[in-house]
């Protein structure tokens, strides 16, 4: 079916209470699709749906309303902040709340563990045959990596677009998996699609951390032709990417690939011939979207090809270095990126746990304290990523290396870098913040799932 009428489409889909409906997050905080579809489902009086969204952002107010009213009973996602996070943290969700990883979600979909009844997939451009692409159209977002498995495996897949093209659209979403096409006047606000997090940090603390992380890479033994690298879209990560590019250029080294979310500094590396390929599961800015159109070495990939742990040819199995953030780290190097130290839901694993496990060198970069809250805690509020997969923590006051990686510690010490044990780092933060009082947890509200479907940790409400 090809229609401009959402209500007519929903009639055809014969949605019932309790169904699992999926959405992707490539339109990020500019997404209009999830709100529009969920509002229609709520008006129809549907109950107990399972919201299966790869990520949830502040723009997703309708999902919060659906939780409040019981339209949505269960939520499974890889990342959440904004009103949905607040609603869940207040204990308003009647059913189960599950946080997955990007790789774990793809695995669960492909293996049928998380069967999707209907995938509502925002698609910036769709052609007459039902092929979908993210690199054309008014709401172009680039790679649609997190939509591919949903599109292929859902019982019914709906591509939702505001740009129906006459010409064939080469893209990641093949017409063979498309059941319906819905055209809406607009699928999103381009201003919100390109995230506001893409400024390379000018903060002196962030730059100090970035410089030290770059030195860790320089002396890690992994800097050689063919090195592979991944970094996120945070200010420190982008600064490291720029410095890593300069280091590649200065040492005459060519990297094999950069992977994950792609932004302007990654594109610069490709266009300076510092890296052979960009394996792009998600574009973070317009520069990355434009690059997908003009650079053959810039290759969109699916979440499954990116990080599914059961996919033997997944990209990150060959990943050398990954730069990751943290809201909390404990003295066993376990990392929290799901909640803050007080239990507020602020994000989630995304690809954190996937890349930490698969990479040869997983580097956490974070300031030792934010305000009066220390980074390193004796006990995490939530464990997102297991410490055994983390190699080192780079902070502004020193580098803590996981005890299992004494070879790395030796290399860094020999290079004169400030290697200190993690307890010492914790104490140096406490000298400024004081030792925090233990936080009392409230009721359990959900689980953090590992990439193979194992339970990594339980999520709790804030006490009081």
């Amino acid at each position, binding site marked *: 079916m090809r229609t401009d009428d959402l209500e007519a489409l929903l009639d055809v889909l014969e949605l019932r209470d309790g169904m699992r409906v999926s959405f992707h997050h490539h339109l990020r905080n500019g997404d209009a699709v999830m709100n529009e579809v969920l509002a229609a489902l709520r008006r129809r009086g549907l109950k107990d749906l399972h919201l299966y969204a790869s990520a949830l952002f502040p723009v997703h107010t309708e999902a919060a309303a659906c939780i409040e009213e019981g339209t949505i009973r269960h939520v499974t996602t890889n990342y959440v902040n904004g009103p949905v996070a607040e609603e869940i943290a207040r204990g308003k969700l009647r059913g189960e709340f599950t946080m997955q990883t990007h790789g774990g979600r793809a695995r669960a979909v492909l293996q049928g563990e998380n069967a999707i009844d209907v995938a509502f997939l925002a698609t910036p451009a769709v052609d007459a045959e039902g092929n979908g692409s993210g690199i054309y159209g008014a709401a172009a977002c680039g790679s649609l990596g997190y939509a591919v498995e949903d599109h292929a495996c859902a019982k019914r897949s709906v591509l939702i677009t505001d740009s129906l093209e006459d010409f064939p659209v080469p893209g990641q979403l093949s017409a063979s998996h498309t059941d319906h096409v819905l055209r809406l006047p607009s699928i999103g606000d381009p201003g919100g699609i390109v995230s506001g997090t893409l400024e390379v940090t*000018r903060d*002196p*603390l962030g730059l*100090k951390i970035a410089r030290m992380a770059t030195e860790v890479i320089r002396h890690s033994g992994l800097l050689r032709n063919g090195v592979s690298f991944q970094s996120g879209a945070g200010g420190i990560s982008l600064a490291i990417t720029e410095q890593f590019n300069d280091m590649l250029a200065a040492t005459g080294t060519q990297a094999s690939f950069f992977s994950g979310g792609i932004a302007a500094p990654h594109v610069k590396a490709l266009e300076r011939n510092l890296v052979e390929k960009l394996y792009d599961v998600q574009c973070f800015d317009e520069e990355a979207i434009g690059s997908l159109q003009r650079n053959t070495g810039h290759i969109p990939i699916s979440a499954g090809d990116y990080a599914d742990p059961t996919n033997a040819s997944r990209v990150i199995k060959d990943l050398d270095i990954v730069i990751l953030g943290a809201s909390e780290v404990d003295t066993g190097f376990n990392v929290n990126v799901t909640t803050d130290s007080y239990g507020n839901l602020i994000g989630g694993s995304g690809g954190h746990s996937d890349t930490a496990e698969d990479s040869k060198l997983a580097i956490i970069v974070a300031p030792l304290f934010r305000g009066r809250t220390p980074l390193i805690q004796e006990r995490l509020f939530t464990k997102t990523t297991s410490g055994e997969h983390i190699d080192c923590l780079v902070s*502004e*006051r020193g580098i803590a290396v996981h005890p299992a990686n004494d070879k790395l510690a030796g290399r860094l010490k020999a290079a*004169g870098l400030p290697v200190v044990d993690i307890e010492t780092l914790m104490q140096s933060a406490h000298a*400024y913040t004081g030792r925090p009082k233990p936080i009392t947890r409230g009721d359990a509200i959900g689980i953090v799932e590992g990439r193979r479907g194992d339970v990594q940790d339980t999520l709790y409400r804030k006490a009081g």
Partner: protein
Amino acid sequence: MARSYLFVPGNVPRMLQHAEVFEADALIFDLEDAVSLEEKDEARQLVRSFLQTHPPSQPAYVRVNADALARDFSILDGLPIHGVVLPKASIQTLASLREQLDGEEWSVLALVETPSAFLELSDLARDPGVDGLILGGVDLRAALHAHPTESGIELLYARSRLLMAARAYGIEAIDTPYAESDDAGFETDLKRSVALGFDAKCAIHPNQVPPLNAAFTPSQERIREARRIVERHEQTGEVRFSLDGRMVDRPVLEEAKQLLERAKRYKALKKEADDAD
């Protein structure tokens, strides 16, 4: 001796608690221009409390107020500081400072920022209590009715004059901070400081510190050349010889020795095997 002196406003707790991590060779905790009049007392208490509980690992100075020395010194007693920076330095303010020091053997860096200070510069530089001269370019420019230029011509005489005085009396010559926010201008200004011969430069933003330290650290190329000159002298005892077509005599030899000293101080001396890196 330092390459970088980072100004830290005394009234901003976040800046105080992070000041130590920015790799400046020395810190100047500021009670003067960075702090408004109504915040002076609060800043004094904040700086005192901070330095008592978190003494930084690098030498710490306090920039006091020339017109409120007694109040500033009332909070400095017993603090683990290396010295004080005297703004609006003159023979008169130096005498007032000496009274406040009351035998305390703190280092004094004189901030030369008025035309009259230049008329007394030799006396300031030869004062046994003064360990260095800092050029205060912003105030001086205003006093001279001059404007900042890309070439820095408006401060060239002041910079050169201050350097002469510092060199004549064997004390540190520290250049004025770059007060604008553009990176290119900072880089040009920094190159000028190094080329003129300053030992160090002040920084008013932590991001200025790493390039500043790098600029005042001898390059590996210059270290290699200095090593060859000194080694040739040590092997042959000659003080006048030709090396790769360049004439080496005593001043060149002395310059090479000084450069190696600086390189050693800033941990820039690598083993021979590392030089190929």
